[in-house]
């Protein structure tokens, strides 16, 4: 499996055969052909994602709540998204926005006794919510795998890299140690780790940060998963290594054809990697669309704030423009728009709509796949006139 051409991989190769996916035409063309009304209906039914393809992962109306001594923490509220095979969805948001919590729910990694999950998570059509721990175990690491944030703490410090890789393979494949070792060496080679036989016998502390993350990626791809959840895979790495790791993920996706959910707060990463973007704020989706739409024509003041807070090299003398204020407490979410307290455009909405009524997630141009959650009427003109010039 060292070097198959990207498109050679037939769908039958994969474990549970998922319907046609790789061969669909480019996203924009498909959406245009279908026409807005059909696209909207199908999207609402969870059949199609913003790029206009049949999704592999469908998350619908997902809510994750944690009962605590202080009350019920609503970490994720009514979240819906979908990802087709071979595509990347970036979930963007600041700390505590629910991006990690929602993907941990996809993996079924929350402590059942301390978590209340409702809604639907479907993987290739099969419902995951309500599955027993034993059934989830068979999916974890096999059909769905995860790349964690900090490989230093996410890899077991007391086992060799080889041991951890072969273990990951042998959980889901009844093979001998030698076969698993061969597979592990293959994977190490594939993720660009030089001298795999030597590295195989080494411990994580003998690896550099970038090499550790490569090993982590090798481990998560060893079972040829159809969905990879990458939880801020480059956060703990320095900038030059970040680019290498992102390239690696991109190339591996082309080769394996997996769906990727990329959790990040770095819009630079989003621009480089994502097909679709979902912006989260206080446990809710506030804007969702293709990467091109969301990055070029954002229609929600929070997304504008995120874009404005990216430092630009050309305007070196300027100070950073942070979004003022803090996110609301998840124990006690406001009645209206969660972002209202920090939003500089609240006065432009008539009455007290922003603080009293939660805006719905609606198509930005009346119909279509790009949706946002905002009461503002003239979002497009405000963006063009006031926000875009500031972005430089």
């Amino acid at each position: 499996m060292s070097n198959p051409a990207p498109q050679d991989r037939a769908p039958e190769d994969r474990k549970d055969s998922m319907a046609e996916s790789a061969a669909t035409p480019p996203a924009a063309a498909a959406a245009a052909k279908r026409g807005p009304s059909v696209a909207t209906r199908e999207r609402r039914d969870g059949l199609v994602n913003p790029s206009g393809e049949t999704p592999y992962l469908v998350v619908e109306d997902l809510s994750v709540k944690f009962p605590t001594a202080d009350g019920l923490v609503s970490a994720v509220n009514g979240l819906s998204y979908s990802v087709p095979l071979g595509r990347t969805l970036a979930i963007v948001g600041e700390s505590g926005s629910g991006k990690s919590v929602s993907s941990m729910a996809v993996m079924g990694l929350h402590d059942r006794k301390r978590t209340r999950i409702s809604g639907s998570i479907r993987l290739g059509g099969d419902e995951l919510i309500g599955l027993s721990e034993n059934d989830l175990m068979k999916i974890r690491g096999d059909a769905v795998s995860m790349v964690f944030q900090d490989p230093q703490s996410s890899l077991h410090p007391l086992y060799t890299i080889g041991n951890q890789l072969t273990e990951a393979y042998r959980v889901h494949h009844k093979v001998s140690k030698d076969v698993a070792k061969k597979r592990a060496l293959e994977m190490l080679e594939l993720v660009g780790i030089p001298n795999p036989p030597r590295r195989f016998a080494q411990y994580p502390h003998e690896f550099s940060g970038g090499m550790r993350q490569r090993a982590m990626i090798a481990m998560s791809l060893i079972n040829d998963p159809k969905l990879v959840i990458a939880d801020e895979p480059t956060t703990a790495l320095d900038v030059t290594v970040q680019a290498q790791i992102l390239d690696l993920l991109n190339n591996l996706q082309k080769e394996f054809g997996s769906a990727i959910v990329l959790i990040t707060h770095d819009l630079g990463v989003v621009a480089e990697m994502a097909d679709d973007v979902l912006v989260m704020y206080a446990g809710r989706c506030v804007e969702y669309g293709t990467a091109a739409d969301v990055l070029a024509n954002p229609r929600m003041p929070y997304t504008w704030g995120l874009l404005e807070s990216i430092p630009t090299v050309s305007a070196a003398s300027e100070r950073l423009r942070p979004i003022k204020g803090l996110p609301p407490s998840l124990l006690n979410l406001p009645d209206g728009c969660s972002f209202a307290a920090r939003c500089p455009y609240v006065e432009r909405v008539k009455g007290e709509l922003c603080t009293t009524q939660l805006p719905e997630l609606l198509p930005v141009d009346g119909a279509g796949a790009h949706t946002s959650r905002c009461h503002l009427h003239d979002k497009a003109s405000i963006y063009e006139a006031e926000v875009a010039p500031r972005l430089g």
Partner: protein
Amino acid sequence: MLYFVARRLVSALSVVLATLIATFALFFVAPTDPAGAICGERQCTQQRYNEIRQNLHLDRPKVQQFAEYTAGIFTGRDFTTSGVTQHCAAPCLGFSFKNDRPVTEMIKTRFPVTVSLVLGYAVLVLTIGVFVGSMAAKRRGTLGDRALMTSTLVVSSVPYYIVALMVALYLTVLYPILPRGEWTPISENPAKWAAGLLTPWLVLGIYNCTAYARYSRGSMVETLSEDFIRTARAKGLSDRVVTYKHALRSGLIPVVTIFGLDVAGSLGGAIFTERIFDLPGLGVLVLDSLNSYDLPVIMGTVLVASVIIVVMNLLVDIGYSLIDPRVRLS
């Protein structure tokens, strides 16, 4: 790895040497009167007292005495009392005039008793203690966890010798449910050896299990919240493998330290257990020689106990480096 062991060995040897000097100084340089102690109080004539001083070479310079004592450990030496010369073979730790036997020989007969006792104890605390602690950590916050932790607190708040005495009195004498403690060498009759040690093993083991359950619970609670545990679960491993392979290996590290020192301490003599269950171990030997002020025996046992502690520390360090590859670097 070899370099690591060699370095530790050198530092261990220097500690043993320091203990040797300290023990010697404690009994022979400090203002004590070994000859007077051996001579006794009633029939001690001046002539006998001087004779003992001469025989023990107490009239020679301290440095020379120390050199002779140390040389004796490696080559053996001769002692003459009342005209009779006795040979004390290497490793000679001195000669007990009260018992008329070399100290080494006395320790040799007692040591297997204590080792047998500690062996069973070690197995019990490492299996039951650690297992119970891990179970509690996995179910932390539940009723079972709280009940367990409360009961360990209750048990450890009753002094050990009370528990041991009660068990000995009620369960082996008044209502003989458990066999009475007695010593039979394992080479003589293994079944009888185990039967005689069963009650002391259970009492010592279960009483101390509570402490081990607490240590390992604390350590496991911490480990189970580590990122690499989440990774292990994300790989699709079962709960059992995650807890007993991934978590236990790092959770055990702090327990190993305590275990090593605990076993080392017990090997130097489990005084209460040996006394109460009638086992002629090192602890009873120490107790008896303290009562009779038998200086050479006290010195010998102190030296042996300190060597045991140094050796156990060395073993703990080596065990550490086997469990944790990062230790080998530093």
